[in-house]
């Protein structure tokens, strides 16, 4: 790594340390006396790094019934399931409608209507139908991911280069071979581009599902609403930190997969 790259990393670390130190220090200054509650900046609302670390260690230990790891696992599992089901059904529907104009024309108003419905508003209904468990969270994530992938795939399936199809036909391809060797790969390029936003939105869907889902659904969203009930800012911060880490890891993982699948694209090519 070059010198300037190290300098960038050093600056980032410095900013983080200053931020944490200021947070820790400012939430420790009393306004008037040692009377509890009278702080310049009250740790009751935003907690303190030391308290968060303490709660993290506690929630990670086996002294609690549901550890932070179990909750994180539940959130990750539902997100991945919602993502997988959403991507595969969104791709299939996008490909089908993208290649069949009549069907697309007939279904268009329903798709637009359903997509303009705020998905959050569906949470109570989904919970009623699918119960307070893993399934409801997955279904919620699916309703979001499906449309992201669907619209991208639909667009991709419609913009398949006609001359590529002609070339294949001249090379002796059957209609079936044209579908598998031209239409699907050229559509997939568009589908792949929707994977990164999809995983982020799947996570959003799952956390919202967990807000309502209660303990049986588990998950970090449950920890957040539970902390709201007990007015425990430190626990809430622990949940947010872990969620952040999950979000970043998943996005980076998808980026890696995308770069691998789209390695033929100019932006992923290292020129020889």
């Amino acid at each position, binding site marked *: 790594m070059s010198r300037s790259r190290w300098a960038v990393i050093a600056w980032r670390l410095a900013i983080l340390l200053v931020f944490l130190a200021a947070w820790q220090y400012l939430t420790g200054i009393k306004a008037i006396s040692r009377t509890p509650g009278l702080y310049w900046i009250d740790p009751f609302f935003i907690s303190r790094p030391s308290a968060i670390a303490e709660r993290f260690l506690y929630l990670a230990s086996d002294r609690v019934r549901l550890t932070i790891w179990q909750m994180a696992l539940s959130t990750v599992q539902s997100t991945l399931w919602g993502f997988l089901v959403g991507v595969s059904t969104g791709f299939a529907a996008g490909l089908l409608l993208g290649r069949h104009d009549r069907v697309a024309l007939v279904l268009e108003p329903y798709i637009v209507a359903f997509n303009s419905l705020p998905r959050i508003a569906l949470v109570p209904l989904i919970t009623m139908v699918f119960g307070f468990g893993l399934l409801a969270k997955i279904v919620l994530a699916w309703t979001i991911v499906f449309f992201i992938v669907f619209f991208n795939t639909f667009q991709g399936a419609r913009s398949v280069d006609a*001359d590529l199809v002609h*070339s294949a036909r*001249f*090379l002796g*391809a059957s209609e079936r071979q044209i579908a598998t060797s031209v239409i699907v790969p*050229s559509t997939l390029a568009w589908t792949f581009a929707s994977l990164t936003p999809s995983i982020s939105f799947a996570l959003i869907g799952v956390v919202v599902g967990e807000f309502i889902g209660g303990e049986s659904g588990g998950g970090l969203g449950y920890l957040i609403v539970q902390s709201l009930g007990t007015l425990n800012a430190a626990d809430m911060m622990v949940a947010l930190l872990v969620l952040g880490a999950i979000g970043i890891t998943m996005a980076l993982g998808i980026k890696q997969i995308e770069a691998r699948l789209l390695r033929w694209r100019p932006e992923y090519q290292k020129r020889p």
Partner: protein
Amino acid sequence: MTSARVRIAIRDLSKTYAAGPREVPAVSRVSFDIHEGEFVAIVGPSGCGKSTVLNMIGALIPPSEGEILVDGRRVGGAPPAGVGYVFQKDTVFPWRTVERNIALGLEYRGVPAAARAARVREAIALAGLEGFEEAYPATLSGGMRQRVALMRSLVVDPEVLLMDEPFGALDTHTKLGLHAELLSLWAARRQTVVFVTHDLSEAITLADRIVVMTRRPGRVKMLYDVKLPRPRDVIRLRESAEYLREYGEVWHALGEEFEGGA
């Protein structure tokens, strides 16, 4: 060449496009024959319908009137069997490596993997693409991509090759290199080639016969036999007196069409 069998017969071919309420004639009553093993170039000012004629031979668009017979069979619907097509536009599949692009036609025909690999290797060697087998098109120059497209069409051994300004987007030097390659590949197999271009020097360098078309609506203005001996050296040819004489004659006919146009 008149002794050879007629491979492609074009009879009273017309094409009219609908442009809103108006009908725009693009090609008007074109008739000529292309013989087996002949290299025919179609030249004309842009918009004269030369690509339209080629697309009708390849059954990409249906004629409005007249007909085309390839080996006596009327063209229509699907592309005629044994016909290859090289587009001007880059139609190499970007998600396939060079060797998998060249293998496409063989895959479609269900050629077994071992035989396929051998024929692809041969094609790659012929086109001088060794070392780029595993490369994706995005890493290749325009000339190399067009070479891949050419080999992809040739590897399935078409009897007729239709080429729509395949080198139109390339610089002069790359173009000359590809002319030399095309001529040597053609000399080995003697496919029937129909080559559309707006570049007269390209037509003279490559073809046995040149079809000069008028400006829109395109008709056949002249059928010109290129009297240059083969094999031709694409570079030295251009300095020869014969070449200049041929060029002058066709240029005169073509020039009349340009003058009257835009």
